[in-house]
Each structure stands twice: as C-alpha cells, then as structure tokens.
C-alpha cells in the first residue's frame, strides 16, 4: 500500500542529505514465489517491490513464516524466482555469487577448518590474483575486527555459538560483497551475546558501508541497526506492508538510540504493525 508513498518520502530524504547515495543497489520487482503442492500452488510472495539504496542498512521484520527468509534466499540466489526479478546495480541476478554475501542463521562454519581457514575459503575465491600473504592479511584483518585475533588457529568446532557467528561476520565482510544478506544472524544467541554482536556488526559496517538486508524478529535490533525497517505482511501472498525510516544519526550508540525522543515512537509503530 505504501510503496509509492514511501518512494516519495525517500526522495525528500535524499534531498535532505540523509541518504549518502541515490543509486539503487538492490531492486526487487514484482517478485513472486510459488511452491507447488499436491493441493495446488502455494503463493508465498506476490507483487513484492522493494528498492534498496547503496550504503543503506535495511532490516526486515514480519511474523514467522511470512516469507522473509524465502525472500532473502531468493536475493542470495539460493532459491529460484517464480516471477518478477531481482537486480543488483541494474543487472538481473543469475544464481548465487560472492557479490551477495550471506550470514546465515546458524554460523555454518566448516567445523573441520580453523577460523582462519574458514575466512580464507571465501577470500581465496574472491581475490585469486592476490598473493597468499595478502589474502591471509585480509582474512586476519577481518577476524581482528570481530575480536577473534587470538583464535586464528582454533577449529570452528571448538568455538561457542557466539564466537562462531563472529567468524561468520568476518567471512561475509572479507569477501567484500556488494550486498550483505543477514538471515536472523543473532536469533540463536542469548541476549547478552546478541548485544555484543550487534555492536561488532554495526562497528564494522560503519567502516565498510556495505548495503545490508537483515531479517530479524527483534524490534529493538531492527531499530538500532537500520536506516529503514521494512515490515512484511503475513503470508500467504506476503508483500511489503509498511516501511519506517529511522532517522538517527550514525554512528549510533545503543545509549544514544535508547535516549532519543523518537525511539519509542518508532517502537510503537513497529509493534502496532506486528500486532495487527
């Protein structure tokens, strides 16, 4: 309902200089996903339109099973598109690729590799012409950024879930993707670790400014991290229900966000949407 309206609002925001760039990084057009079942087709997503700008951080919230993850894995290229299209910088995507890095819900590190090897797996693939020393430096740099400098040679299976997800973040950033896709990356962590990892994520993101799309169930997380929060309607035939601009300045701190006058207004907006 509000897509067109929303575009207008964005234009004005760009005019205000709130968005760093006008370029559309990720464009979803009339996206549709259908799963055939014995009882006929099940339409998960229909007429889903969303434009995400360069250097923008977008969080997506919606009820469980509404098709958020389906949408994200379609952007990643891991799930075929039934209708419409997805383009990155104007080019239609064809299958998965390292231009769209993914941080999965479970850390998905190879347990038989060390943390360094896990990050190197991607780095080797994306920078094949760099020397081995250069590639190692890249991997070590990002591992340092996520606070894993003491565990280069630890096996992934020896690490806690939170530590593994830190490596997952390092692995995703180290391949320098155009778009970063995060599928509820902190959903399995306790709230203390979750806060820690949000800080790490936003700190590294402030440096790299990689266009990010993140699914979350956590309203506070959605507000803290995002430039825009996208609300999806419940399935079947889910689409974008509403979009909320979060006008906090960056870099943000948790404290400044919580103390901001608009914080509870945003929060109420999201909760009202979810409770409808």
């Amino acid at each position, binding site marked *: 309902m509000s897509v067109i309206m929303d575009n207008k609002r964005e234009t004005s925001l760009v005019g205000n200089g709130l968005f760093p760039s006008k370029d559309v990084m990720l464009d979803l057009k009339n996206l549709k996903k259908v799963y055939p079942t014995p009882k006929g087709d099940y339409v998960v997503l229909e007429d889903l339109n969303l434009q995400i700008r360069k250097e923008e951080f977008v969080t997506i919230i919606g009820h469980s099973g509404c098709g958020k993850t389906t949408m994200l894995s379609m952007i*990643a290229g891991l799930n075929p598109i039934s209708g419409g299209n997805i383009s990155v910088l104007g080019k239609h995507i064809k299958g998965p690729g390292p231009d*769209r890095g993914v941080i*999965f819900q479970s850390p998905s590190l*190879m*347990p038989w590799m060390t943390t360094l090897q896990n990050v190197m797996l991607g780095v080797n*693939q*994306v920078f094949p012409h760099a020397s081995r020393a250069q590639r190692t430096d890249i991997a070590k740099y990002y591992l340092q950024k996520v606070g894993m400098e003491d565990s280069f040679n630890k096996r992934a299976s020896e690490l806690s879930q939170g530590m593994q997800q830190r490596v997952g973040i390092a692995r995703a950033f180290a391949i320098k993707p155009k778009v970063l896709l995060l599928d509820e990356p902190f959903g399995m962590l306790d709230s203390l670790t979750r806060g820690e990892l949000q800080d790490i994520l936003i700190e590294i993101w402030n440096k790299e400014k990689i266009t990010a799309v993140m699914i979350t169930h956590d309203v506070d997380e959605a507000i803290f991290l995002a430039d825009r929060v996208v609300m999806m309607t419940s399935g079947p035939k889910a689409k974008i229900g509403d979009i909320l601009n979060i006008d906090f300045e960056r870099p943000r701190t948790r404290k400044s966000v919580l103390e901001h006058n608009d914080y509870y207004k945003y929060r109420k907006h999201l909760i009202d949407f979810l409770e409808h």
Partner: protein
Amino acid sequence: MKQSLTLGKVTKFMGLGFLSTLKGLFTGKLDKEEFKTFLRKTVVPIASILLFIGLWHMGAKSLYNIEADHKIEKALTDQGQEAAVALRACIASGESGCQPNTLPSPSQVWDSYKSLLRDHNIIAADKAAFIEKTAALNETRTAQGLDAITYTGRPSFVDQIFRSLKTVFAGFLLALFIAVPLGIFIGLSPTLKSAFNWFIQIFKPVSPVVWYLLVFMIVKTLLIGSNEDSSFTISFISVGLCSMWATLVNTAMGVSSVDKDYINVAKVLKLGNFQKIFKVVLPSSLPLIFTGLKITLSVAWMVLIAIELLAQSPGLGLFVWEEFQNGANDSNAKIIVAMFVIGIIGFLLDRLMLTIQNWVSFDKTDAI
C-alpha cells in the same frame, strides 16, 4: 595449550581405555570411583574370559568322554573285548595315535600354539640359512641375467598370517579405490544414483564364494599364457569386490547428506567443483566414509578365509583347510589356534581403523 601426549591419552584414542586403569592399579593410586571403573572395565572382562575358558574346558572334556566311550564301544562290538580293553588303556595313556578326535581343550590349543611357534622358528632358521647359502650364487646368477633362486619350503604359520594380511590389505585398497570415488560420484549426482542403485542392491548380497568364481572366470581368461600364479590376484580381487559395498553405500550416503548450510556456503562463494568436493563435501562426509571403511575391512578379513580356501592361495584360510584335510592328532587344536588368531587380528584391524578415523575426522565422538 600444548597438550602432552600421555600413555593414557594414546590408549583412549585407540579405544583401549581400559588399559589406563591398570596403570593406576600398579601405582596404587586409585580412589573409590576409580576402583569401580577398574572393576567394571578390567576385572569383569578378565573374569568373563576365565569363565569362558572354564566352560570350554568342561565342554571339551565331556565331548572327549562321549567320543572315547563311542570308540571303545565300537571296538567292543567290532573287534571284541580284548581290543576294547587295549583301546581304553591306549586312550588313558594319552598316546597320540588312538586319541578321540573332537573339540580340543584349552590346554591342547595352547600347546598347539606353542608348537606352531616352534615350527615357525625352525622354518625361519632354515630360510635364513638357505638365503645365506644361496647369496653368493644368486649374485652371480643375477649378474648373468638369470632369476635368483628363492626359498620354496613350506610356509610357517606366521608366514601364513602375513600372507593373509597382504591379501586383505590388497583387497581393502582395491575396495577403497573403487568404492570411495564411485560413492562420491553417486552421492553427488542423482542421475548416477538411479543408474547404479539397482546394481548395488543386486550385487551387495552376493556371497563371497560366487564373487570368487566370477573373478576366477575373468582372471583365468585374462591371464592365459602367463605362468604366474594367479591365486593371489584372484583372491585379493574377490576380497575387494566382496567388501567394497559398505564403503560404497556409506560414501554415497555421506556425500548426498552433507549439511545444506555448508552447500549453501559453497554456492554463495561460488566454489568450483574441485574445491567444493575437497574442501566441503569430503571432509563433511569423512565420518560416514570411515564407518564404511571399517565395515569393509572387517568384511574383507571375514571373507578372506573362505576365499583363500577356495583359491588355494596361501594364508590362514588355506592353513585351516589343510589342517582339516590333514586330520592329524593336533589338527583340530591348530584350527582353533587359527580361529583365535583370526579373531584377534580382526579386532586389532578394527582398532587400527578407529585410530585413523579419530585422527582424520573432525567429529571426535568415537563411532563404535
């Protein structure tokens, strides 16, 4: 962080953890809890072994009596009172010629074991002497381009064991090199899977004897005109073909059931096929591949005996068969010795595989 490799850790790693409590017993450092584990893990197995030997002894004794009574009765009806009395005296005197032929007792088996070792020492000395004597001659022969003279005497029991191990390892390697790559391809491609499925289902249950005959038919034809002794070739190929199925099925299953998250990571990173197989698929399916290889090795060892027997290939199987045909007084005891040797080697091979598995696999839960 550096961990010293203690004896205890090594034995535990090899699945021989029960040995570590023994050390505590000798050093006298055992608390109550440790004593309980010592009872359960060391005393109970030893007690059960002793009980087994006791039951075996009694069973063998009663079988001996039945056989002896039958023999004497037969002598009585066939040859009369005098012969029966003579036979009874002969059996009681322990003379080897008239002993009843039945299940040997533990002490007889132990004696046979010792005599087999003595026999081995004699043969080994003989062989060494032969090699020493022919060394000079062989040197001149090889200089002239002639074949060296080799020792052709009877192989000892220990030689047979090594021959069997050689056959089983050759067969195992054959199974490994066929089943693991094939399993990977089948696991990766649903098309290949449906192509090979019927093949696996039909050939998996085929008996070792039939495999032997099949291999015999083929190898015999292929080796026409060659003077070489084909029995070793035939037996190791049969062993390999018999035993490879577990590895094939497990590898295919392991490869096709790799965690979807890992596959997604590989897809997002656009890993090439080679990288995907060697960095993701293989390491992840290694635990299942090893489970398959462990089964393969034990099956290989099990069918080896039957196949050696058929192929007349030197080894423990042939040893057992020859002793059975021989029917000498201590033949039965020798067969039982071979049985224990086969069992113990089978157990050691299994532990060996477990050790290698723990070594290479990321999954540290020991699969037994």
